[in-house]
């Protein structure tokens, strides 16, 4: 089921991005995007109860982080709407719940207060509706944890940067109060140092001069730089001309390097002559067959035993099967090898 995590995340982010583009927090707008994408169909599947439940659990765990910081208020609203939509359109009973951790509850309450202050009644109504519908599990941690589980790829926890406010940590750190405090301490420090030296040498710099104005200046430069950068990025995004061309040029370059390196085949050593490498054109289908062979498993014990007994059994046909004490019936036709499901078609095929 974890294989669905990537696509689900992509779908949710597309929905959120489209909602973000509307620059609104109204539920009508969300509903429009939801219906346009036909998002409730995400639950449609063959009615296998367990699979449906696992999927509902998965999509809830993917969607719920959008309701919490560090996302912007608008994305958090969208996250709430998304949870509401998902909770009500899932196809199983009893419905899968939304997990909310104790440490995140304060954020949810702050969110509610912000919504009250801004009089976003639709947001409030939906939050209260979810609470009164008993849509939440009140838990210790946002997801069940199990030590030693397979390490997921970082994609799972990666946050979508477009949904987050630009960071303002330096600005938060250096407030006017803090500046004043630093100024005072600095003065104190100067006095102390002066008292150590009975006759201060005028050429000796006891302390750094103008510490506070310098600090203030640095913060201001930083924030203006940050602002300028986002501005210029937006402009670049708007007029995609030059960056687009550049990236495609890069892609062409990479492709040409790849084709050159795959175009040559190293000659195998003498001992491996019987398994000489062959040049396979890097077209989609062939490549996909090649890849799985890399990590081919050794045959199972069952097939190995069967092979061994088959070679012996060829000589004396009516031999009893030693390990099951019954006469050999007609040999089964060799079963067609089952093809394994390929979860990531993009990765194995289409290397360019």
């Amino acid at each position: 089921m974890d294989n669905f995590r990537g696509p689900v995340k992509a779908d949710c982010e597309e929905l959120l991005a489209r909602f973000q583009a509307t620059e609104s927090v109204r539920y009508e707008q969300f509903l429009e995007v939801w219906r346009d994408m036909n998002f409730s169909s995400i639950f449609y599947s063959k009615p296998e109860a367990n699979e449906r439940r696992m999927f509902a659990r998965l999509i809830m765990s993917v969607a719920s982080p959008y309701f919490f910081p560090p996302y912007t208020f608008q994305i958090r609203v969208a996250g709430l709407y998304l949870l509401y939509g998902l909770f009500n359109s899932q196809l199983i009973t009893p419905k899968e719940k939304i997990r909310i951790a104790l440490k995140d509850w304060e954020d949810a309450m702050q969110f509610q207060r912000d919504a009250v202050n801004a009089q976003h009644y639709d947001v409030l109504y939906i939050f209260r509706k979810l609470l009164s519908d008993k849509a939440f599990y009140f838990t210790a941690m946002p997801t069940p944890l199990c030590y030693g589980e397979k390490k997921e790829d970082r994609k799972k926890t990666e946050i979508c940067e477009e949904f987050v406010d630009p960071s303002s940590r330096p600005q938060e750190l250096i407030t006017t109060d803090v500046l004043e405090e630093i100024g005072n301490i600095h003065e104190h420090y100067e006095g102390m140092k002066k008292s150590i030296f009975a006759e201060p040498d005028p050429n000796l710099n006891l302390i750094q001069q103008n510490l506070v104005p310098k600090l203030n200046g640095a913060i201001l430069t930083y924030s203006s730089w940050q602002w300028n950068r986002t501005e210029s990025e937006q402009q670049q995004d708007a007029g995609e001309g030059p960056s687009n061309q550049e990236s495609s040029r890069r892609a062409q370059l990479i492709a040409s390097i790849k084709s050159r390196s795959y175009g040559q085949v190293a000659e195998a050593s003498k001992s491996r002559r019987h398994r000489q490498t062959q040049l396979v054109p890097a077209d989609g289908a062939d490549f996909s067959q090649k890849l799985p062979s890399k990590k081919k498993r050794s045959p199972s014990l069952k097939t190995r035993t069967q092979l061994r007994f088959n070679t012996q059994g060829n000589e004396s046909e009516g031999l009893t099967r030693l390990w099951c004490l019954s006469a050999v019936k007609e040999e089964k036709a060799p079963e067609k090898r089952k093809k394994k499901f390929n979860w990531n078609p993009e990765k194995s095929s289409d290397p360019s």
Partner: protein
Amino acid sequence: MAARSSLMHEEKQLENVPAYEFINVNSNEFHIGTFRDLWLDVLNPKVYSYCNSAPEIEDVEFIEEMGIEPKTLEELKIICSVDSLRSGHEDADNVPSDPHLSTLKLRKRRQDYKETLTRDTVDRHEVYANEMEMISVGKKPDNPRDLIPEGEIILTFNIMYPILFQRFKYVRAYQTLHVLGSQRLSDLRDAICCVSDLQVFGEFSNTPDMVPQFISKDHYKSAFFFFNGTFFNDARFPECQDISMTTQEWARTRDFPDFKTAKMEDTSFYDLKMKVGFPYLYNHQGDCEHVVILTDVRLVHQDDCLDIKLYPLITHKHRVVTRKCSVCHLYISRWITTSDALAPTDPCLFCDQCFRMFHYDDKGNKLGDFLAYAYVDPGTFN
């Protein structure tokens, strides 16, 4: 003074808000009882109660708190109606043929692939798993006294199986148990099922009918949990020994800090300080060691199984392929023989019936020379 004590109190509270110690691996250590109190403090009792409050009351409250007109609320209700979320597509049991969501594209491919597999039999195990779920889902007790009190906590434990087979090194086989916060550790111990509790010792080839009904569980009752630096020993029966002593003495000679001991029947989960997602130990039958992981802690929900008698509740069991009798290939093995001249392999497995027909004559006299032991299949709990 009072201010200081309240500050200390607050600090203590903060300590017990679970947060990540390592992101997505395990939480920090917190006191489960205090954690529950913290939730109950911040929540309106309506939110976790089992009965739904009347929608009219909800409406009035909403209007009062927000200071809005009833007309506005009506509008809100229409806008936010659940029905408008649904799409016109009515066939929810099939993936739409031209999906544009990437999830559906993947599912469509998977569904098409599954249709190419020929599997016309219903998976027995799936059926069984469903049945197991049906017993507990949304179950209300017959007797109102057995109702779980509101605001109770459910803990989810994964109990790993010890390495019975070589392949358990690669598959993390486990069972999942739900227990209530007010239950004792000994309740959890009794709910854990493990084949090493069922073994019968001794050689019975001369007296196959005399197999004693006593299993290891009745003979060797000692067990302990090791949570967070404390050994919780089972001391309910006079035969129980403190089998953690060996470990403790060993540790003492090697300059380890001292471990605490406690009795598991005197400890409820509320008294524990634990980390979510962190591996702990359950040891029984001397050396049968299970890794125990607390995966989840949460308040009881009205859709949970509310019958206190059904807890600890098993929600997941790893299923093992059973070893069949080597004669009939039909029944699960009950006997294992060694140095058996009649058997094709050494050791060899037999079901009860085949074993008797094969090794004894009509009058129950032993034929040939062999040693027979009782065999408990690891798949017994399937």
